[in-house]
Structures are given as C-alpha cells and as structure tokens.
C-alpha cells in the first residue's frame, strides 16, 4: 500500500482553516522564513480517512484478536474510559493554569483526579505516597532510581551499584545505568532470585536491587523476606517493577512485603490501551522514608477539602515531567479503578492467575513448561524440543499469526531457551483459550509432520516475514531516501 506522500496531489483541499489575509512577507522578514515547502501531503478528507482505515486493518489489536503477549498484560480496554478522557472539561485543560495566580481554583476537578488516583495506588500497593509524573514504565524506573540516589546522597551513603536479576526486563539495567549506576547482574536459580548469588555481590556499595514479583517467568519470589532482610543489612533499597502487578492485587502489597520503591504500568494493570506502543503511564510509589525525595510538583488536599499543587520540597529530585505526567492516561485508569472497586480489582488478579494456570495446564503436554508448577498471571514455555527438528519459537509465533492470534512474547526472559511467554489476562473467555490451544496443537502437530510449512508462516498476513537485515543496512527510515 503506497504511502500518504505518494498519494498526494498538490492543490487538493483537505481540512483547511480560513485563508490568511496578509502576505507572509508582511509578517516576518524573508530571512526568517522557510525557503521551500515542507512536503506535507495534499489529500482530501476522504483520501485520509480511507488511507488510515485501510492501515488499521493491517493491525492486530485486542479488539479484534486474542493477544496472549506475556509481560504486556494485553487485557480489554473498556470503551467508556476512552470516552471519559475526551470530556472537554479535561481534554481542553491547559497544564499551565495551576501556575497562574489562584490557578489551583481553575483546576479542582483535575487535581482531585490526581489526588484520588494517588490514594488508590497507595492503598493497592501499600505505599506511603505516589507520584503520577512518570510518563511510562521505564520513566518510572528512572524516577525511582533517581529517588533512591537522592536518599543515599542525603544520608551520605557512598553507593555505586544496582543489582538486577538476569530475568529482569531490559529497562531495569538501562534505567539504572542512565541514572549513573554500575549494573550488577545475578543469576536465577530454579527460576527465582537466589539469595546465595545475591550474597556474593552484596556489599556496602549496593544502592538497590530491582525486582519484579511475580517475576518474568510468572513465578512468585519465595525468598522475598530473606532478600529484604539481606538488603536492609547494608542499607540497600528494594525496587519493585510493577509490570506484573496484575497478578497480585489484593493478595500481596509490595509495600507490606518490604519494597521501598515501586512503579506501576497503568497501561497494563489498569486497563489503559497500549496504543501501538504508547503512550503509557508509570506512576511511582515510595515508602515513608523516601517521600521527601519524590518529584515536584505534588498535589495536596487542605483541611477544607480543596486541592493544591505544592512545589516546596527541598530534598526533591526535581521535575521528571513538564507537568503532571500523562494525565489523560491517569484519568482512564482512575475511571477503571472506580468502576471495578475493591472486589473488582481482587477479581482481576484472581481471574488473571486462573486463566494463566488453565492455559498452562491445557498446553503443557505439547509444549514443554520448564517451571511447571502453579504460576501467577503468566508462564513461560519452551520450544527447545521442537527446535531440534527445526521449528523454533519464532516459527510457532508466526504460525499463530496465521490463525489470527497475536504471538506470545518470544525469547524473553533471556534465561529460557526458545521461550514463549503466555499471558492470557482475566478478560479472555475459556472458549477463546480452548480454541487457541486447539490451534496451537495443530501447529505443533504440523511442526512434526511438515516443519517447512511452519517455517514458511505467516502466509495470511499482509506481508510475510520481513528482511530485517536489509532494513538495517539500507536504513530507509523516511519516504525520501
């Protein structure tokens, strides 16, 4: 399908505003003006509508396809949350209004949404305070690590290292490095963090350890109390990567369990859409002793019930976002929380874990599950056996696309060979999972009888497997090259 730019026809009228009345030269001196047109496309409104409608049909989304993509929590995104984010009372609100004199008064509704969302998150996670400013999960990690750095600096601790298990999301070590820390990786044992491996690298220079629980294998970290104790002995903090929060709401609060800092991915657990890769939102919560270091501004409620933004926190790490984070995403998550309430959130996790275990049990006779015990909201299988015959995890993933499913996450975590990571979420029905497993069985049978057919997949998608080497070599990243 040709690009917008190729469809352009100079002079064709789109959605033009009124015509200007002065010549450009009357507005600005020639030397400050653009020399040549930018090359934006000229299209009719229908051209544009048709182009993007056709493009949308080349995508798999949760609305149209089962998306058991492990680690990503591709649950259904309620439509009414989208509607609410578009309410003009919020959508048209200028972020600088609170900085005007008595500006807080102009934005009471929005400030209340922020304040209330923070209270919900504090109670769900068991933390003292939250900031909504981080604009994505990885941004939350960076904010969290900067908060940890500020804490140690304030205490006069000389800390240079952050520990990440080998099963960690890639963003964990990257965020620690960006914040100026040396990253120390430790090997897992039986799929979880090994206290002995931790003991080997733990010393006074360790600022923190970053973990997720359940971990990226979908396993509960049984040694958590021991790990907390070990870290506390050297005044190292424990960071919780909230990517896997969907498994434990109402079953465990990370604050109670001894985590000091946490980020939450609102676009995973709280049902806001992934948008084809963003925007997300990654609020950060902290325990009591880290509250002074949270980013500014902070929203507070006065005794009369009015909400205000406060900036005067001398120990704060400063600003991590231009304003208050991805407010539009926060608003959707707030609506989701209000709708589900206490019982609903607990049921989210119960049903996410139920679904993952059901899926695990219905496919573990055909696909090896290396840690085949009760999992949390996701689990990891391995196509190592199939790969001996030439059908790799990648091939199985592509064959699933042909059956109309988005593939599971593959080759992550890095510690399981030929891995496929499944996360069905709580919103998929038993029938959907049953049909999925039946189709997966067909693919695995075909892998035995005709490996080449699986290796040739996908054949029903708009394009087949694409030449990534060619893309990297030619580096054709705009329509002009």
């Amino acid at each position, binding site marked *: 399908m040709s690009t917008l730019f190729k469809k352009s026809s100079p002079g064709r009228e789109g959605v033009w505003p009124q015509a200007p009345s002065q010549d450009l030269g009357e507005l600005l001196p020639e030397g400050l003006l653009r020399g040549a047109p930018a090359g934006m496309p000229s299209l009719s409104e229908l051209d544009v509508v048709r182009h993007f409608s056709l493009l949308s049909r080349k995508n798999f989304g949760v609305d149209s396809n089962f998306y058991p993509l492990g680690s990503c929590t591709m649950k259904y995104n309620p439509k009414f949350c989208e509607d609410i984010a578009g309410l003009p009372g919020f959508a048209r609100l200028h972020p600088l209004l609170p900085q005007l004199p008595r500006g807080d008064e102009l934005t009471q509704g929005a400030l209340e949404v922020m304040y209330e969302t923070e209270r919900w998150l504090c109670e769900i996670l068991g933390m003292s305070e939250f900031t909504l400013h981080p604009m994505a999960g990885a941004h939350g990690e960076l904010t969290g690590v900067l908060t940890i750095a500020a804490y140690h600096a304030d205490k006069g601790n000389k800390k240079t290292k952050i520990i990440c298990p080998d099963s960690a999301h890639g963003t964990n070590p990257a965020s620690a490095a960006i914040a100026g820390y040396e990253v120390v990786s430790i090997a897992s044992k039986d799929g979880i963090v090994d206290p002995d491996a931790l003991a080997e690298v733990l010393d006074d220079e360790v600022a923190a350890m970053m973990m997720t629980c359940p971990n990226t294998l979908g396993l509960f970290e049984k040694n958590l109390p021991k790990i907390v104790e070990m870290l506390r002995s050297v005044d190292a903090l424990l960071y919780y990567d909230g990517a896997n929060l969907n498994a434990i709401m109402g079953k465990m609060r990370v604050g109670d369990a001894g985590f000091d800092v946490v980020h939450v991915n609102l676009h995973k657990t709280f049902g806001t859409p992934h948008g084809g890769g*963003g925007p997300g939102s990654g609020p950060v919560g902290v325990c009591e002793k880290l509250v002074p270091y949270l980013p500014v501004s902070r929203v507070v409620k006065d005794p009369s019930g009015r909400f205000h933004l406060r900036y005067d926190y001398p120990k704060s790490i400063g*600003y991590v976002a231009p304003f208050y984070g991805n407010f539009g995403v926060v608003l959707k998550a707030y609506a989701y929380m209000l709708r589900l309430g206490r019982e609903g959130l607990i049921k989210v996790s119960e049903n996410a874990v139920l679904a993952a275990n059901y899926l695990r049990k219905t496919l573990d006779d055909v696909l090896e599950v290396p840690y085949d015990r009760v999992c949390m909201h996701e689990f990891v299988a391995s196509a190592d056996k199939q790969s001996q015959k030439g059908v790799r995890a990648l091939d199985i993933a592509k064959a699933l696309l042909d059956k109309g499913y988005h593939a599971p996450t593959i080759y992550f975590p890095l510690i399981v060979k030929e891995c496929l990571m499944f996360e069905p979420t709580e919103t998929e029905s038993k029938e959907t999972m049953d049909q999925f497993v039946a189709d997966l069985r067909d693919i695995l049978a075909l892998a035995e009888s005709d490996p080449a057919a699986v290796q040739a997949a996908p054949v029903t998608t*708009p394009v087949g497997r694409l030449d990534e080497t060619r893309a*990297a070599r030619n580096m054709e990243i705009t329509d*002009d090259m």
Partner: protein
Amino acid sequence: MPYVPHTPEDTRAMLGAIGAGSVEELFAEIPLALRPKSFDLPEGLSEMATRQRIEDLAARNSNGMVSFLGAGFYDHYVPSAVDALISRGEFYTAYTPYQPEASQGTLQAIFEYQTAVARLMGMECANASVYDGGTALYEAMMMAVRQTKRVKVIVSETVSPIYRILLDTYTRNLKLTLVTVPQAKGATDFAAMQAALDDATACVVVQNPNFFGCVEDASALFAAAKAKGALAIVSAYPVLQSVLKTPSAMGADIAVAEGQSLGLPLSFGGPYLGIMTSTKPLVRQMPGRIVGRTQDGQGRTGYVLTLQAREQHIRRQKATSNICSNQALCALRSLIHLSLLGEEGLARTARVSMENARYAAKKLTAIKGVELLNGAPFGNEFAITLPRSAQDVCLTLIEKGFVPGFPLGRYYQGMDNALLVCCTEKNSRRDIDILAAWMEDAI
C-alpha cells in the same frame, strides 16, 4: 463482574483442569506474613455512575474561559476526522509492533510520521517519538554528549524553563556541565553563547521561536559551534515550522519539538509527543524506536522496527537510552492531523495564528503603559510589559473569564510585570477586543 467473562461453570471447569480446589489455592505460595495489611477501597460503580462521577469532576475545572495561554502548549483546532480515525480499536488496542506481519498498520504510520516530521524540520532522520518535547530535548543533548564524547552543554535561557528544569533533574547524577546563558530582554544572547563555546562543548541548545515568542536565526552561532566541533540543537514549534526557516537551514544537527500542537488535546499536560529528528550521521545515537522500510520474501514492501541494537531490550545497561515505549498513538494523531491539513492547511494555521497575534499586540500596546518587551520579530506569541504586576492583572482578568497569558515573573527574575500572550487561529478578533478592553480596565 465487568470485563471478566467466566461463568461459575467456567471457573469450576478451569479449576478442575488445573487440579485446584479453589482460586485461592493458586495463591498459596504467598505466605500469610506477606498478605495485605489492608485493602481498604470503595466498592465498584456501574458504568453510568462512574461516568457521572467523573463528569462532575470535569465540571469543577474552569470551562469556557477565553484563553491566551500558550508558552509551548497550544490550543489549535483539531479536525473531527482525527478523533474518528484514532478511535479505531485496531490502532489503539495494539501493542508495540514487535510482530511486524501483524502490525503493518502501526509500522507504516510510524514510517509516514517519521517522514512528515523530518520534512517539517528539513532533517534526514527521525525516530518514532519519545514522551514529550522536554524529554526529546534531553535525549538530543545526550546524543550530542555521546557523539562528541564531551561534557559541556550550553543552553540559552530563552529555551523553555519547563524543559530546562527537566534537564537539571536528569543530569544531576551525570558528569555533565550545564551552562545556561542569560536571555537579553527576551532575546537569545547569541554573542554570549558563542563566547561560551570551547573545546569541551558538546552542543549548543536554542529554541525557535524562543520561549518569549521571538523568531530568531541561530545560523551564525551554529557555524561557530561547528567550527569548535560541537553540535547544534534546536527545539522547534511544529505548526510554525511550516513557514519558518528550518533548523536544518540554520545548520542544526538535531531538531526536536513538542508535537502537542499537531492535533493533540492539551489534556492537562499529557500525553504529548516528543519529536526527534537529526542528520543522517547521528541516527545511530538516536534513542527509542525507529521504523525502516524493507521487503518480505516475495518482494512485497513492508515495515519493521530497525537498528534495534541501540535499544534496552537488546543492549540492556549499554543502550542509548532506557526508553522502551514511544508515543505511538500520539504520533499517529499528529500524522492524521498533518495529513488532513496538508501543506496549505498547516501554513494557513500558522499564518492566521500569527496575524491574530499581531492584531492582539497592536490592541494591547495601544493601552497606556503597555509595551512590547522587545522589538524582535515574533510568531504567534509575544511578551509585553505592563505598568503593574502581571500576576495581579492576570488575576483580575481571570475573574472576568479571560486568561490573558502567562506571567513571566515565575521563571525570569525581574520580569514581574511581563506577560506572555499567545494567539492561535481559534482566538477571534472579537475576543481580542474584549481582552484589550478588560486589560485597560485592569491597568
């Protein structure tokens, strides 16, 4: 419960298959000591009741004010087709396009977005976007630091203070020197920036139009930077970029922008869109996702995420950035918006906004004691000085239902009487006349 489809029979059958007696059994690994000490939350509400609650909150924000507030975040008209198209579930309920065969819609759209924003800046390359304009500026600075292996960054004070405070936070733990060159009556002090250049300088950073609305030409500074082996970075305003001299024509190596003005609602600060473009030699320093064009086995054109060896999921702690996501849906919005307006529509938006700003400047400076802060050419925003505190005048006008602009004293010492006034195509002449009348009263 909403959004969970299982009937009691389904649940029983699933538990049976697992071999568990209850759902609670599945959580047996969580020891009692780690169970929640509290989970004190309200009960859920119906969709209608939730909506009512949130509509009530929306009504508690100031709605219907006439606003001349910009300062980097602009209220432009958004055509209806933008929302109609962005609401297609195939776009917004998709994940990151890691399975390209099932994501050609998102991938081609990002490729087209990269093309559009690169063209707007006159640059050769673009990434798939980062969180916002401030993050884009920080990442641009870090690109320069990596590329030059130098540690000094020279930033003009006329770069948005909202972005400069972000740079402060992010560089606090890094061994970098951030030199801020004071503004000169709202203009960029190019001579002082040039004087600050030395062999340790990684980059110079300016904004055009600058925070005060002045349209400037950094060509001479950029040439001087180049001569010292430093890179040149511009933070731009995409709508006006349709008519202004491009960063590339000035000799910039990296051009970034806040893309909010391209069809995104103000939405109280986000989600926004960090546009990043650069020259070709810098593309490997670019953070975040990049989409490239290629072919499948049958020679059909397709799109993939490319140059992924820069990114955290491959490189972990050695990645160019920790950024994992992009603002895909916001980038798509901006692309649809740009496509609907086209070359002519975007330029008209810029020109009508600038014409309105000139009309407003004329009306306001006709008031006794009100003057332009400087005589520099401006775009759709300009700074004026008032005979009394801009905060006080602002407060009086807000009570009349008008937000007259942004008082500059908050970020610039000695500018307590200065006000930054913005116009877009949405500000009518009638509204400007009323603004001027109220302001005259207030002064």
